[in-house]
């Protein structure tokens, strides 16, 4: 009976947890070559999704999605009609943050989204029923549901897997492997965090005043979603990279919201009791 149920719902025991793995993406080293984007699509056999130019600098990808799990941003900065000596061209390779408290995972009603033994957040394709709840839950707009009638994995949710399959074979994720300048650094999250702190120190010392880390345990941005297992060294404020200042974890406010609807329900019941009772 129980087994029958487990088989119907294909429930499996999870593997034993290991040291958390993740990315430190140091945007000060990014040269915008997009090797990471291509390597990701190649390894995961994601289809090309559209041959349209955006006109937004060299970014013709736009945003992350069901068939784009790495996205390189190109931010052109130069004060209007300045002599351009303040000119900057910031590049940043965006990816799923594998949040310590993952909104997508908490939202998932089927348990398709799981925390893997590497501490990453992973969509089990055979479980996902495409309810779509994780999509608006993610504060970073990462995960998306593939079109219901498209040719690629129709109707289920997709995002970076942290190359789960490669990790299983002790291989570095394809994107980090292909990055020529070590802008994407893969490893044990705690070790990467120390490295990031040191790196920030160096850059500050070099006068990179705007440099800041995003997604570190001590950062305010981690106050709700927790440390990001894929975190960043940025050269401008998070918003410049479309990153929320303090990403929200819906769970944090859910109780309060339930409270109000409960209050209304109870209130109605009382009124009802009074109305009918008064005769």
């Amino acid at each position, binding site marked *: 009976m129980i087994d029958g149920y487990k088989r119907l719902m294909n429930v499996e025991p999870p593997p034993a947890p290991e040291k958390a793995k993740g990315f430190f993406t140091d945007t000060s080293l990014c040269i915008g070559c997009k090797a990471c984007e291509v390597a990701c699509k190649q390894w995961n056999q994601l289809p090309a999704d559209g041959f349209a130019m955006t006109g937004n600098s060299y970014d013709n990808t736009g945003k992350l999605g069901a068939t784009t799990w790495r996205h390189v941003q190109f931010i052109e900065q130069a004060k209007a009609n300045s002599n351009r000596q303040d000119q900057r061209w910031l590049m940043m390779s965006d990816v799923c943050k594998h949040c310590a408290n993952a909104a997508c995972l908490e939202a998932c*009603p089927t348990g398709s989204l799981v925390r893997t033994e590497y501490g990453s957040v992973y969509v089990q394709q055979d479980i996902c029923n495409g309810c779509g709840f994780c999509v608006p839950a993610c504060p970073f707009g990462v995960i998306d549901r593939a079109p219901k009638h498209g040719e690629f994995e129709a109707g289920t949710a997709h995002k970076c897997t942290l190359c789960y399959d490669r990790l299983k074979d002790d291989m570095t994720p394809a994107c980090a492997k292909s990055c020529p300048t070590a802008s994407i650094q893969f490893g044990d999250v705690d070790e990467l965090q120390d490295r990031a702190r040191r790196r920030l120190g160096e850059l500050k010392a070099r006068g990179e005043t705007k440099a800041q880390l995003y997604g570190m345990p001590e950062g305010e941005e981690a106050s709700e979603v927790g440390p990001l297992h894929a975190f960043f060294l940025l050269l401008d404020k998070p918003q410049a990279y479309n990153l929320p200042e303090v990403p929200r974890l*819906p*769970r944090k406010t859910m109780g309060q919201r339930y409270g109000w609807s409960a209050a209304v329900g109870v209130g109605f*019941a009382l009124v009802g009791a009074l109305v009918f009772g008064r005769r």
Partner: protein
Amino acid sequence: MGAQGGGEGYYDYPVVRRPVWTWEVPAYFWLGGMAAGAYVTASLAQKFGSVDDQRAAADGYYLAAAALVPCAPLLIADLGRPERFHHMLRIFKPLSPMNLGAWTLTAFTPVAVARAARQAADGGLLRGPLGALARLVPAALLELVGSVLGLALGGYTGVLLAATNVPMWAKSKVLGGLFMASALSSGSAAVTLQAARRGVPDATLHRLATLEAAASVGEMAMLGGYLMQSGKTARPLTAGRFAAPFWLGAVGAGTLLPLVLHGFAGRRRGRMLRSLSTAAAVCSMAGSLALRWTIFEAGKASSEDQAASFDLSSR
């Protein structure tokens, strides 16, 4: 010194993703809510009301059962992989409003149907062995359990939307309360409507109308709170494409008009009372559909509002 062309953020790309849900979802919210409202109203009448009240409100059980029938199909139709709908029940995970909702609907539907069957048996509509079987159903217990489940069903939908990062859904604290109120007002309205058609004693009709009006008042209060807390974020709702259906439908027809009509109905009796109550009930039911639909659609639009997302996630 923002990115070329863009404002504070990265060009004008949205921060969060647009929800993939379609019309089935608001339709389900509306029907489920009404079912919940009707069932609770009926049960309140059973517990506290007079014999007339009980007889009049009992139709709520039929309404609840009827409204619940299309709910599950609607939800399944909206899935990316409908054939895997049962994975919703793979685990019990109240942390996920959608999982909670799935279990609630699964539990509430049979209860409502059973209670309706009992009603049919008692009313002599259901005879023979089935009738006999139905008469075994423990009415009082189902009324209590069903009411709790019903309130859960009516109450979780708004919270589900609020438990996202869509600015217009997530910003306010009271979206859950608002949907709950709307569920109860429309549900009780449905009962009132049926009672008016059946021509129940004026006193009973007055009591039902009062209850419905109370729900509408609550709904109005919640709406006020919702709009105040949402502020600029609610612009896609209060201005633009969805403004008309929202102000006229959700606010006007959904709350103001019913209250006005009930006001008129106040001391009136007979046909006049019945037609006023009918009108009020229809408005409130239509209004709550408008409310669900506009907030749902406008919310999707707000997911593409970069500034709203930054505002939602600012220190």
